[in-house]
């Protein structure tokens, strides 16, 4: 039990601090929610990239499918009332996990670099499918704001998209952290560690590498889908293919994981915090130029801490009494 509880303490402290800062004044909620999105995104991708070392350039497709799952629940099952949100999350899980199983079963037989190349096409392919055959509203997307008002009334709708959706992202991120601790300490975690460090050695030691890679991929995809469903569909009340299939989010997610420390528990939280904070404040100080400043800053941090900020901290606390708290 202690091996699950102790590593969660820094996570709980970080999450609580963030929540309290967000609730402390009206104007702070937006930046906190913005940062929280990146934290949750980093944690979701960390389950795959961090655990296996495999890079997925099509990752944003899982967020996209999750956001479509939620939108489809609203557009097709509005008679369910409040339950429609639950159905939306279920659809998000089903759609993102199905895509991950389809892609994973084929591409995860490949090794690292070949996998990365194979995934580049997935996201663009899906986007052209949606726009080309006019699936799910084609390039016009799905707008759920009026359905939402019909179901919930405008006050509740407003409350959902300005507060509940953000809280959901918070909860999803927190559950992701908990699952990560569990995985790291389990058989699955040992298998993934072995695959990440040396796949051939892992195989001759009895690790069914492909199976564990697919498991990590599917879990990571499901969390991405849940984030898409709440941070995009519930919050923005619309889904447009050019927004949700935007490769920028894939790149940002990778940057966050590397920045914070791939495969660590607190790494993606720290990475999301640093990245989200920089992006938010630079966009108010230097609108339009934020990437010009963020990019070199990231390069600088990754140069100083090649294993990411928390990867560095984790190494530093090894063999001290803090070692059980930072994993």
């Amino acid at each position, binding site marked *: 039990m202690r091996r699950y509880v102790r590593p969660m303490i820094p996570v709980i402290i970080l999450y609580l601090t963030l929540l309290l800062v967000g609730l402390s004044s009206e104007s702070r909620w937006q930046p906190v929610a913005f940062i929280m999105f990146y934290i949750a995104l980093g944690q979701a991708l960390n389950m795959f990239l961090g655990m296996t070392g495999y890079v997925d350039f099509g990752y944003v497709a899982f967020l996209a499918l999750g956001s479509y799952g939620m939108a489809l629940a609203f557009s097709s099952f509005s008679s369910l009332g409040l339950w429609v949100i639950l159905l939306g999350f279920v659809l998000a899980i089903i759609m993102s996990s199905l895509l991950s199983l389809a892609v994973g079963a084929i591409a995860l037989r490949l090794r690292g670099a070949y996998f990365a190349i194979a995934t580049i096409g997935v996201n663009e392919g899906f986007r052209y499918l949606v726009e080309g055959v006019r699936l799910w509203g084609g390039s016009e997307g799905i707008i759920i704001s009026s359905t939402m008002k019909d179901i919930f009334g405008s006050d509740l709708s407003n409350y959902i998209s300005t507060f509940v959706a953000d809280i959901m992202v918070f909860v999803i991120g927190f559950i992701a952290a908990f699952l990560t601790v569990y995985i790291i300490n389990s058989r699955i975690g040992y*298998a993934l*560690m072995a695959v990440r*460090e040396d796949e051939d050695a892992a*195989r001759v*030691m*009895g690790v*069914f590498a492909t199976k564990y890679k697919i498991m990590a991929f599917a879990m990571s995809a499901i969390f991405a889908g849940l984030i898409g469903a709440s941070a995009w569909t519930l919050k923005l009340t619309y889904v447009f293919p050019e927004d949700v299939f935007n490769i920028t989010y894939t790149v940002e997610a990778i940057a966050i994981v590397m920045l914070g420390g791939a495969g660590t528990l607190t790494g993606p939280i720290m990475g999301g915090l640093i990245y989200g904070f920089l992006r938010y404040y630079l966009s108010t100080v230097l609108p339009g130029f934020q990437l010009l400043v963020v990019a070199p800053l990231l390069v600088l941090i990754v140069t100083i801490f090649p294993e990411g900020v928390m990867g560095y901290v984790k190494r530093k606390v*090894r063999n001290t009494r803090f070692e059980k708290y930072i994993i």
Partner: protein
Amino acid sequence: MPLLELDGVSKRFGGLIAVNDVSLKIEKGESFGIVGPNGSGKTTLFNLISGIYRPDSGRIFFDGQEITELPPYRRAQLGIGRSFQIPRPFKGATVRENVAVGALFGTLSGKIDVDSALEIADHYIEVVGLHEKRNDEAERLTAVEKKLLELARALAMKPKLLLLDEVVAGMNPKDVDRVVDLIKRVKEEEEIAVVAMVEHVIPAVMKFAERIMVMHEGRKMVEGPTLEVLMMDEVAMVYFGESKLPGE
């Protein structure tokens, strides 16, 4: 029925036949040595047995079933453990975590939990003498310690057949003695068949193996009781060219 049987196994890389029509039987609990000069195909043979490569022709049987087409992880779970010539530790993980992987996914795969695996790991870490380093990251070990880690990881798999690729290469004579003794001891205690291959450290082979096979340019040259084989003129030829054994 032998524990391991190779039946006319061959593997080519482009124009090169790295393993050429090798047949071999290893009995349960046997200690078998494979010697041969550089590039004679020893490592390739191990890769064929552990499943990293599939043979181009020939068949492989283990413990009563054909494994020619089985993937490496299945063979490991059936009881084939191996070490790598160039150690391949999970660098960022601790010694304990490294060895626990063997326990979790070897022949006990699915039968034990993480805590029992860590106990097994601690046992074999003690056996190979890495106890003081058990919480260190594997990448910080010395070259000799990494070889010992390879051994502990393979032992923790509780294999029926242990393939050791040059475990004692690069060790000083004292370490060689210690490691050979410990392999012999564990082998007796756990009734593991051990196939060890070495390029040169002949004294170690003599001390350890009951039977040996000499490989030359991918082929099995001779096979038989260790001393007998090492006395053969043609074996000396392979190692020392035209000249005779030193001292003759």
